[in-house]
């Protein structure tokens, strides 16, 4: 009895989490990693090997609390690419001044070209997964129907689907609520969690079947 009520509490908590996550996604959407959503980018040639940490300090002074990502570009690592949600003219001027001071360059804000980088759609990140996941799911379903033929198939598949769906929904809700940036790695982690859930479900079914 005690276990049942614990399970009920857990289930209720899970459902509340999923509802909260759904509300957050509906209102604010998922927090997509800076490089994946639309942002502005500038590329600057420095002329010598760049210490990214040093440059990070400069950018922190210029951008303040604004999120930014630095990437070394070009084969010799002597150019830097700065990505931020938006880059204002004042920030450009401040950046130019600091770079000129630190690296003996002659940049002017009006000469620095700001490019708008469009977003990568989440559906484009998920697209490579669709075909293999559908084929795998079909084969796994077929395997389970054959392996556990003496069990109630609808109950078996229904429970399995519900378990995985609830886990994934809960995970997505946690990601949405905690504003973890969604990227290709996060999507793959969700896939791995689904796989683990499937293995555990299969293991338990094997145990009960035998």
């Amino acid at each position, binding site marked *: 009895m005690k276990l049942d009520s614990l399970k009920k509490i857990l289930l209720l908590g899970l459902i509340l989490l999923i509802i909260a996550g759904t509300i957050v996604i509906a209102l604010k959407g998922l927090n997509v990693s800076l490089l994946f959503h639309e942002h502005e980018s500038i590329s600057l040639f420095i002329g010598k090997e760049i210490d*990214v940490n040093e440059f990070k300090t400069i950018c922190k002074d210029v951008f303040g609390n604004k999120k930014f990502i630095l*990437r070394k570009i070009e084969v010799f690592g002597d150019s830097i690419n700065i990505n931020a949600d938006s880059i204002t003219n004042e920030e450009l001027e401040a950046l130019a001044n600091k770079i000129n001071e630190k690296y003996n360059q002659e940049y002017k804000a009006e000469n620095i070209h700001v490019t708008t980088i*469009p977003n990568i759609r989440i559906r484009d990140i998920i697209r490579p997964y669709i075909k293999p996941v559908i084929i*795998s799911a079909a084969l796994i379903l077929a395997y389970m129907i054959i392996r556990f033929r003496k069990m109630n198939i609808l109950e078996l598949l229904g429970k399995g689907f519900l378990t995985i769906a609830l886990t994934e929904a809960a995970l997505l809700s946690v990601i949405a609520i905690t504003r973890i940036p969604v990227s290709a790695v996060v999507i793959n982690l969700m896939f791995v969690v689904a*796989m683990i859930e*499937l293995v555990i479900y*299969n*293991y338990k079914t*094997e145990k009960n079947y035998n």
Partner: protein
Amino acid sequence: MEKKVRVVKTIVIILVAVLLCLIAFVGLFVKRYGIWTNILPDYQYGMELSGFRELHFVLDNSEEEKEVFLDKNGNYMGDVKETSTSDSSGVSVSMVDENGEAVENPEELLNGVTDDGTETESEFIKEKRTVKANPDELRTINNFEKTKQIIQNRLNKIDFNEYNIRQNNITGELVIELPDNENLSLGEALITTPGKITIIDYQTGMILLDDSHVKSSNILGASNENGYQTYLQLKFDKEGTNILRDISNKYRTVVDEAGEETTTYISVNLDESTLISTYFGDEITNGTLQIPYGQAITDYNEYIAFAENSSYLSNVINGDSLPLKYTLSSDNYINTSVNTKTLLIVEIIFTVAILVVSLIMIIIYRLEAIKFVGAGLIYISLIALICRYTNVAITYNALIAFVSVIAMNYYLYFKILKDIKSGKGAKEALKTNLTKLFLAIIPVAIIAVIFIFMSSIVISSIGMLLFWGLVLLALLSLIALV
């Protein structure tokens, strides 16, 4: 004595395991010609870990004033060529009418087109107009989306198994991230080549047959006395076959009553480039046109490489042509964000994690666990070596799969040690737990096999790591059982 032998065996296993780990992750170095060289194949890395090219493409805004042919409905039917009495090799030719008689004014062949643009009973008119590379009416969100999809299809077909594509829905600009390898220029060609193939009248410039009638295309090869020749083969639909037959009858060498030979030519164009200018010897009734592509090559390997590179052409022609034309505006090489320091931190974290797990194993299960610690290290190093030799692409996804199979392996060891501690024999414990584990992970095995065959590196790398991890787990366990 027996205890000493067991201790020695265990120490040897641990030493072999540590050595294998060093070889697998660091490499095996031998001195060759005075330089220490790693004789093991290098790891292959995905885009995010090896660096990639970020290509920016913008819509081509060029425009040109030129004279064009238009049909009665105002559809574009080709660029008016300056009337020429020379063929592509500079030999003087003249146009002929249906009776084979030379005509002075080639425009007579155009069914009554007049220079002042007035419409007669003719099928076509000439008009001077400003032709834009991308007309305003084509710059729509639908066309932007269509262009993106066609580019994605082209990249997928040519085994560009890793790329990211971004599009600005307002300006149509594209930012495409491609691996920095020998196929980069090919990738660029796939994006900037609209892919419209046309057969035009070489003399006048009028379009005789366009790609709407092309059913399929292929790259073929044949050998002749000059070497190996690549051909572009075009197959046309029913209507295209009839048009091609008429063209092959019209554009050929004709001998007039005076015994003078006159030849009329066609050009096969891909967008604005001429693939070939030629004429026909025989009537073509099967709807298939074979065009020599490139020069004949005497070296077989060179020819194979050329034919492989040329396959992009048939890929482009077989798919839809791009509704919009793009030009490359900038090209940056983006270094990997994983620098030496980050790599070192990750390696340290991984090593510490394995050490902690091993220590926990030894603390709980004492001396019996030491062999399993060694086995665990051997397992990890063998997977790493397999990745080197089977060209498994190391991506973030592959690393997650790598950690998953290692976790599975250690889970098995903990279960076996638990059973051994409770009194079961080692072999029996191994057999029971191995059976349970493999029955439980059959879905994972199915996923691994399916994922291996996917073209996307992001997916296939997961499949490869899972596959080799499971195969190695089975093999090593079977060896232990025997």
